[in-house]
């Protein structure tokens, strides 16, 4: 077990370092931010001063090591546009994104699990076919398309729900959250649904396939033979056995949800890190781009690592296979 954790940690560290080089080199290669930040009337001396102030006159490798040393101290540079530490900009907006992401994950479980169980238990009813077809659509439709349709139907035509911003927020331990006010919840529904749609489809598929497999097992037959109610068989014997793969896949999806919130946040004007990165890419705000990419990659790698370890704790078969490898 310890060997597994150490090996995974090393892999993650190497990957993070590789990403930092790639991101740094790549972002360095695009455009000169001085051209954008300084007025076109500026003379040579002024340009040179601005370049030196941003540290852009040093050789590339030196800039990288300065970047790396600072990154280790939690300093990922100052935003050229906001003139604030890039990391602080991102950390300020992170709660909004996380709130959205976790609401989406919650919806995926709350809606996907019952629907998937139903499809798995009664695969031949009309409703099951409808749900299965819907889950295929949920997989193949681009998130931004679904978002636009949600706005069109629920905000423009029906006028039921707001389509931009977070609404009223409440400060909990210094962090603003939306889900504690009625207005905030109304603002949260559409973006969360949008972000969760493909995840709902995923849970439906996994739950349906798992249920179909498990319901032929002897222990289910035995549970029914000893006279347990149908509800109890499903809740205790089916559900528990299909949950491990679903929890694992959903865990791995958290990273994807945070990354995909770029799309949802842009459509619903949700003030999270996704909206920030798109704006930063269009104005070439290098430190923010680098900080966002590093932080997101870091989050994704850490989540994958945790899920991997958790999975092998939950399922001894995986642990044994890993130990042999």
């Amino acid at each position, binding site marked *: 077990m310890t060997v597994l954790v150490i090996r995974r940690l090393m892999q993650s560290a190497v990957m993070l370092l590789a990403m930092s080089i790639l991101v740094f080199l*790549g972002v360095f290669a*695009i455009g000169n931010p001085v051209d954008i930040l300084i007025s076109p009337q500026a003379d040579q001396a002024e340009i040179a001063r601005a370049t030196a102030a941003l540290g852009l006159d040093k050789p590339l490798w030196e800039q990288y090591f300065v970047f790396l040393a600072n990154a280790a101290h939690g300093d990922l540079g100052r935003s050229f546009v906001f003139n604030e530490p890039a990391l602080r900009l991102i950390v300020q907006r992170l709660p909004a994104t996380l709130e959205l992401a976790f609401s989406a994950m919650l919806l995926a479980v709350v809606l996907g699990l019952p629907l998937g169980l139903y499809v798995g238990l009664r695969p031949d009813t009309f409703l099951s076919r409808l749900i299965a077809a819907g889950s295929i659509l949920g997989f193949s439709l*681009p998130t931004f*398309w679904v978002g*636009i349709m949600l706005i069109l139907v629920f905000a423009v035509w029906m006028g039921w729900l707001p389509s931009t911003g977070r609404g009223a927020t409440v400060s909990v331990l210094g962090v603003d959250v939306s889900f504690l006010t009625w207005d905030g919840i109304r603002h949260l529904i559409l973006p969360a649904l949008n972000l969760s749609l493909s995840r709902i489809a995923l849970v439906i598929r996994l739950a349906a396939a798992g249920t179909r497999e498990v319901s032929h097992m002897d222990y289910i037959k035995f549970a029914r033979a000893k006279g347990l109610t149908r509800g109890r068989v499903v809740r205790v014997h089916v559900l528990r056995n299909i949950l491990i793969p679903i929890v694992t896949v959903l865990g791995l999806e958290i990273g994807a949800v945070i990354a995909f919130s770029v799309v949802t946040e842009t459509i619903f004007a949700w003030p999270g890190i996704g909206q920030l990165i798109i704006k930063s*890419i269009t104005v070439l705000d290098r430190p923010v781009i680098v900080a966002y*990419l590093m932080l997101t990659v870091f989050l*994704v790698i850490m989540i*994958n690592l945790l899920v991997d370890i958790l999975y092998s704790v939950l399922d001894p078969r995986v642990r044994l296979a890993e130990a042999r490898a």
Partner: protein
Amino acid sequence: MSTFAEEQAREDAASIEESPLRRLAADFFESKLAAAGLVVLLAVVFVALFAPWLSPQNPYDLASLDLLDGRLPPGSTSAEGLVYWLGTDDQGRDMMSAIFYGLRTSLAVGALSSIAALVLGGALGLIAAYVGGRTESAIMRIVDLQLSLPAILVALILVALLGHGVFKIILALVVVQWAYYARTIRASALVERRKEYIEAARCLALSDARIMLHHLLPNCLPPVIVVATVQVAHAIALEATLSFLGIGLPITEPSLGLLIANGFEYMMSGKYWISFFPGIALLVAIVSINLVGDRLRDVLNPRLQK
């Protein structure tokens, strides 16, 4: 009524004449939904290929646009009697023509990037399976690393690194997709490699390149074809997403995603058609490709065959 024996005899006779391709086609068309999907897909490809001849207007010839016709609802007529069946955008551009041209761009970028990813990923996957050893573990480690990152994140990194432009977006899409092909082709090549015909080819002292391309590759193709159809749909969706976010194709090559983005700001005021119809076109393209891909997977999967 024919007897069972007669039917059996007819089937036997038919199976002698049948080529594998014809049997595949017959299997494919057993599903009405997939057949409908294929018809729609062919129609979409036809429209994309012949957009300049089918469009009532050249949407990017500024001389033919009339700003006074801007944001007209579907079914309006222009001063010259041209009917805007799907309305016009803010520039007075006929939406139907814009969609035809947009479909052309979207499909071209999706197909090109998938083909390039297929060639790159296929070659690396084949080499990994055939050569084995260090080469294999190096290639597969990169594949694993990349697949552990969400596609949109990889695309964002690349767009941030490379910047805009048609070629750069295609490159980004190739990088996002190649790992899927590499993994698929390696999996089937690993199975095929152990079979006797490969051994026979080795005994004939054929070159490695020849064995890989003429013997191994053709036998690994079926699963790759399935992955390729689904990946084209993914590539189209991802390109549309990037273009919608304003970090995809440039304004000079308007794809469906860009058309949708252009109409987005007018949607709140009820002018839905500028976004809605390009969205429907995108939906039709993606869903029809997926229907065909799903059916191909069932037909080509030897485990499901009778």
